[in-house]
């Protein structure tokens, strides 16, 4: 039997706790073809230079989704009429993370226009308060699960408040977010069962958002959804209902598990580097640089996929037209030619250009939110957890190889200060 390809090893669940040695092997060939049973193969870019370069190559497309194909129901009316229509609508109103310019740029500009500095700053203060509330609930506990008790609820609440989802409806979003967390995992696209579940969840959340948008049109408030629903950008971009629904779902999905992972990877890394935990406890102003280093060292999004629109010569190889391309951000982040001693966790690095938020035109829209949510959580944990100890190291991981992070992170404590 032939060796499994390095890409298979990346996906192999056994490597989830520490995929970095496999990445190091992949970096030996900056761009390499990995067997996946197809003629083209899957091409993997694993060095900082090639990833940064491909992130801004016009022959590289983010339009990687297969055509929408909602599950059949057995009801002929639904399957023959409603389904094709809905599939068509879904294809026309894809979320912009999976779209190319010019559509991508227009939709993204509408979001950026509403992401005002003041709005972001207001959410910053709120996340500190939310973290305090969440920790308060665990006041008497001698053990916490950083995932369930803190990291999971925080980003959903932040996104709901930013969008202006009424407080009483927020619990629905926690359920939806949990289900949709798998939607960005490349392998979920080929799993029909997950796709079917996700498409039911999309229907539920889409229906809800449609109603909410109408409500925001009738009674605009000072929130992001009201802004998106009622105002055009200076260039005249205003989203229609379907794009707006899709975009809201994108913000929820793209900002959920990623932020959860950043917080839990962060706590895990700090518990593995007690000196850094102590320094953060003493000096909360270290948080920003610590978080940048986390985004390099344990990035929540380990890789993103793309497709080539035409052949590309790069690093001595030719990636053919129509090939699947994996941009292994987490491998680029450990590229020794850019980050000396790359496997060392060192928040005092300067001038790091990590790829944790991607780069170029799809650079993470939510980066400021993610940064201060993590800052709120990690500084509070460092300050308030008394004598925190990991109960299992490595902790159990979730399935995902792309959105990689612990499923639970149980920590024994002597209490919460």
């Amino acid at each position: 039997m032939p060796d499994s390809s390095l890409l298979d090893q990346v996906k192999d669940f056994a490597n989830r706790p520490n995929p970095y040695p496999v990445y190091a092997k992949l970096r030996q060939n900056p761009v390499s073809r990995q067997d996946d049973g197809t003629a083209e193969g899957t091409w993997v870019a694993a060095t900082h230079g090639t990833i940064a370069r491909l992130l801004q190559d016009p022959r590289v497309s983010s339009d990687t989704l297969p055509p929408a194909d909602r599950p059949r129901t057995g009801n002929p009316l639904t399957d023959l009429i409603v389904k094709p229509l809905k599939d068509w609508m879904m294809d026309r109103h894809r979320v912009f993370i999976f779209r190319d310019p010019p559509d991508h740029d227009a939709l993204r500009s509408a979001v950026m226009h509403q992401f005002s500095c003041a709005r972001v700053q207001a959410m910053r203060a709120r996340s500190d308060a939310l973290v305090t509330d969440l920790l308060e609930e665990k006041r008497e506990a001698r053990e916490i699960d950083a995932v369930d008790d803190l990291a999971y609820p925080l980003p959903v609440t932040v996104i709901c408040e930013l969008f202006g989802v009424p407080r009483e409806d927020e619990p629905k979003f926690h359920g939806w977010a949990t289900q949709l967390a798998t939607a960005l995992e490349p392998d979920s696209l080929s799993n029909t069962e997950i796709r079917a579940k996700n498409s039911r969840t999309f229907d539920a959340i889409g229906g809800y958002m449609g109603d909410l948008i109408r409500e925001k049109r009738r009674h605009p408030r000072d929130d992001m959804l009201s802004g998106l629903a009622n105002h055009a950008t200076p260039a005249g971009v205003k989203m229609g209902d379907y794009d707006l629904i899709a975009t809201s779902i994108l913000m929820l999905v793209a900002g959920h598990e990623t932020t959860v992972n950043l917080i839990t990877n962060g706590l895990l890394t700090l518990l593995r580097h007690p000196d850094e935990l102590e320094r953060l406890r003493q000096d909360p102003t270290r948080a920003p640089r610590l978080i940048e280093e986390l985004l390099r060292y344990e990035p929540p999004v380990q890789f993103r996929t793309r497709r080539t629109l035409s052949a590309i010569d790069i690093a001595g190889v030719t990636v053919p037209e129509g090939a699947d391309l994996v941009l292994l951000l987490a491998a680029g982040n450990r590229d020794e030619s850019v980050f000396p001693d790359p496997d060392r966790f060192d928040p005092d690095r300067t001038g790091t250009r990590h790829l944790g938020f991607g780069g170029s035109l799809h650079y993470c829209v939510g980066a400021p939110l993610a940064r201060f949510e993590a800052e709120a959580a990690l500084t509070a944990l460092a300050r308030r957890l008394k004598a925190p100890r990991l109960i299992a190291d490595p902790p159990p991981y979730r399935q995902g190889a792309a959105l990689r992070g612990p499923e639970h992170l149980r920590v024994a404590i002597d209490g919460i200060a």
Partner: protein
Amino acid sequence: MAALERAVIVGAGLAGLRGAEALREAGFSGSLTIVGAEPHFPYDRPPLSKHVLAGAIPAESTALPHGLDADVDWQLGTPAAGLDRRAGTVRLADGRALPYDRLLIATGTRARPWPNPHEGRLAGVFTLRGRDDAAALRRALAAGPRRVLVIGGGFIGCEVASLCRKLDLPVTLVDPGPTPLARVLGRTIGAFIGAIHAGHGVDLRCGTEIEWLEGAGGRLVRAHCVGGGRIEADIAVVALGAVRNTEWLDGAGLSVDPGGVDCDGAGHVLDAEGQSDPQIAAAGDVARFPHPLYDGRRVALEHWSHAVAQAAHAGRLLAGAPPDAAYGAMPTFWSTQGDLVVKSAGLTQGADAVVIAQGNPATGRFIALYGRAGRCIAAVSVDSARWLPAHAELVAAGAPFPPAGAATDRPKGVAILDPGFS
């Protein structure tokens, strides 16, 4: 290297400064003199037509940061007036002679003045090259003129005109050519960019030439066009391109003309017989050199990044650390015109075809790729700089033109256009 050696740099601009730094970095420990015609320490010019005119920063805030220690003899406010290669001296305007063992020529260019000096001296008539020009023009714009007339539709003309619109000032841009930027980018792309500026309210008059400027009481009141027609304006910005500062080299026996100082592939200047002078190098806007990317054709570039790269190269060369390759960095350029950012890689001159490789001129965002004899020779991005590096690679590799295959935001079957260079 003997510590007693003397290096002189003539021109205290961008290239002079970066050349001096490179000289020191490469280990030159002799005496270092920098001669500058202006009384200012080296400063940066690109912001002058952008942030300074907009009022975002004062003209004095453009000083270039540098890594030179105190051990530099700055001769500022005294232009060099002559070069005697046999004696090995640079003569200053105040009569002093500075001996050199190594010399860097970095005197750049100056704005081409309005041809009629009397009209050019009218209050309200400006050129834009230096810091003091920018400060004066900024004051005039801030005073709220009735209308600004920009004469010349090159990069600086387009920058000034679009900036006036940002300041909400009425502005007319005249150019005798068929479109703005026609000389550098060709008529086809020039027309697209012109349309964007017209859309922002620039009164664009192409095919129009100003015959004379009328003053009253020493102030500009209007401009008269060739063949009749007048433009009422109290400010005129003369943006007719640049003249190279080479007069001080007259009689030095170098291969020099108003188009620049000729260099060999390494960066040493050539004498009138075409022989290299190993003691003298030139860099920046004033230098003309054979570019390896363009079959060794001699080019003179007025580009910021080129001045930086070539000066670094020349500094090392003079320090006796000859680089292994001929100087031939890919020419790159940018220009901020109002909110529009134009960037280029490569040289468009001589292009026989152009395609819109991505985007759509009608939306104001696109990439134009220029070809010559079936090879990519230059790429220009208009508000889509993120795609430029990939296209610059095609240019560097001399990839086949037109580009094959699909790309994001590229129409199926790109149309091959005449670039319109006359």
